[in-house]
């Protein structure tokens, strides 16, 4: 069962996830794919900002932060699932 990156956060602290799909086709989605959020890429939730949003993720060796609204575009599942 796929969830989005916005839901997984706290529950799966530190667990490796795999991106299933980036939904949408506009400039925003394209940019997310260009910075590395593309299908098949492993991603890990690291922490939330002190005020609860945005959150920090580890992606291909870098730390990236996304707001909940963007994270919602990214569907993920457990790595290897």
């Amino acid at each position, binding site marked *: 069962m796929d969830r989005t990156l916005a839901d997984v956060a706290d529950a799966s602290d530190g667990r490796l996830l795999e991106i299933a799909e980036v939904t949408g086709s506009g*400039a*925003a989605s*394209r*940019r*997310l*794919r*260009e*910075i*590395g959020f*593309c*299908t*098949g*890429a492993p991603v890990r939730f*690291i*922490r939330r*900002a*002190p*005020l*609860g*949003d*945005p959150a*920090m993720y*580890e*992606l*291909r*060796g*870098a*730390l*990236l*932060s*996304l*707001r909940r*609204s*963007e994270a919602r575009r990214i569907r993920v599942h457990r790595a290897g699932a």
Partner: protein
Amino acid sequence: MTTLVRLRPTAPARRPGRIAILGAPNSGKTTLFNALTGHRAKAGNYPGVTVDRREGDLQRRFGADDVRLIDLPGVYSLQPQSEDETVAVRVLEGGFGEPAPDGVVVVVDATTIERGLPLLAEAAALGLPVCVALTMIDELKARRGEIDPAELQQELGVPVVGVVGNRGLGIDDLGALVSAPWDWAGSSSLSRGAEAKAPEDRFAWGRSVLAACRRQAPEPNRWTRRLDRFLLHPVIGSAVFLTFVAFFFQAIFTWATPAMDFLSGLMDGLADQILAALPDTAVTRLLADGVIRGVGAVIVFLPQIVLLFTVILFLEACGYMARAAFVVDRVMGWVGLEGRCFIALLSSYACAVPGIMATRTIPSPRDRLTTILVAPFATCSARLPVYLLLIAAFIPADPVLGPFTWQGLTLMGLYFLGTGVALLSAAVFKRGLLRGASLPFYLELPPYRLPRPSDIALGVWDRAKLFLRRAGTIILAVSVVLWFLLNLPRRPADPELSVAENQRLVLEGSYAASAGRLLEPVFAPMDFDWRINVGLVASQAAREVMVATLAQIYAQEGQDEEGLGVLLSGSGEGGSAPLLSRASALALLVYFAFAMQCMSTLAVIRRETGGWRWPAFTFVYMNGLAWLSAWLTFVLASAAGA
């Protein structure tokens, strides 16, 4: 095409080769550009430091003297979504009235090499010769990662050099390489990458390239993880930050004072010597009162400026800037903006001009314009001398808690006031005339890096020079003009009166005094007298001129024995009347916090927004707000008995 290029080195009037430096944000491009050209372009540890193209000649010691390097803003792809990315892409395509570059150095951060290769594929697709500079090799090794540049070169077909830009390692190789872009040829693997269309395909290609090399991915950056756990903690993080900031503002008062007193003594001594050594003519007094005391009153703040920039440059270099944006992004969301706008706002604390330039990284045009309109509220370094003078004169140095005094806290309060008003105004604009949804927010958080003291020292040195140059040019010029306006028209000296009394009569009847009195209706509600009004008009050229003006007026009145602050508040032993009540002084502080008094800022707003409409708007609304708030402050402070 290739053969044509090959002929160039032997052609008699050859054009210098132009090599562009392309790469992801924060990959180390500017550091390489500086190492190759000997420039000192601004580098910093957060994405989006460079927002404009910059050219420089390759240093001769690399063996070629006809190579021009072009540093570019960082990009994630060649489909630009913000102004800085557009600049980079236009340079590659041959925009700005220049031909396309002769070659492109693609800078790839070796610790996140997988994220850098897609851009190489895109650059190769442009058809320009490319080569690769692998930066951060030191960090890769420290985190027990490995990659062999020779193997990567074998796989890609184009030259690959491993470098550590800020320590000069590998720079000689890169310098030799960029002299001959016509020798860079790609392999079939690279052309496969160039053919990839979707981002996914380019990433997949990058992985296939890496799979063909023996490579050890680096371990997670432990230090960054640990520091983040601490600095991004809701309670501990805020406490650490606030303590740090409070210490800094206190330091400006306590630690910088001895150095400042020393400089003051120097200036006074110089002025006295000039007066004693030269005959008492108008020229002598212009030199002593107008130049030395006027400009000197600004120069004495050099220690505080140095301290301010040391802290700003440290924060920019260590990796905290992007974290600050991460922490306050939620607040920025309430305002209607995003984290990157906060980075531009923070940059404006040095000076609004680079801060406004930094808005180029903001993809949404409305968010960008909003940030431009509010950035001048950030407390730029030109406000510092005025704040320090007024606070030292009117706010008691009584301790509040531990090492912190009311003076330090007031200064901190003024800085927070600037930020608060910037955010409030932004919220108003975003709900009114610049309404519109934000574009997606993503921000890369770099690892923490320990800045090299020599880098910080050089940066601070550059800023100190800039401050002195400002004092020696615009502030000097305004001070001299003002001296004339304060001394003309001439009137015959009355032998019955003392020299000082005669001087005062000249001053009271001067053109400047008339102009200041003309403005009295405007500023009378705050109880500013004509001297302050003259200062306010003159500081329209540069905020620091306020300090220079007051110093001149007092020098001319013959009251230059005690400090300027003592005179202002009338707390001296001479028992002279204060120029300002405390309520008026607070009003003046607030006026300076909000007023738009900087021509360079207006000019850069005009350039970035393409017309006079927005600079005119900024000028009117900021000064209107400044007047209103100053008046309100005066009324409230008077009511409170200040």
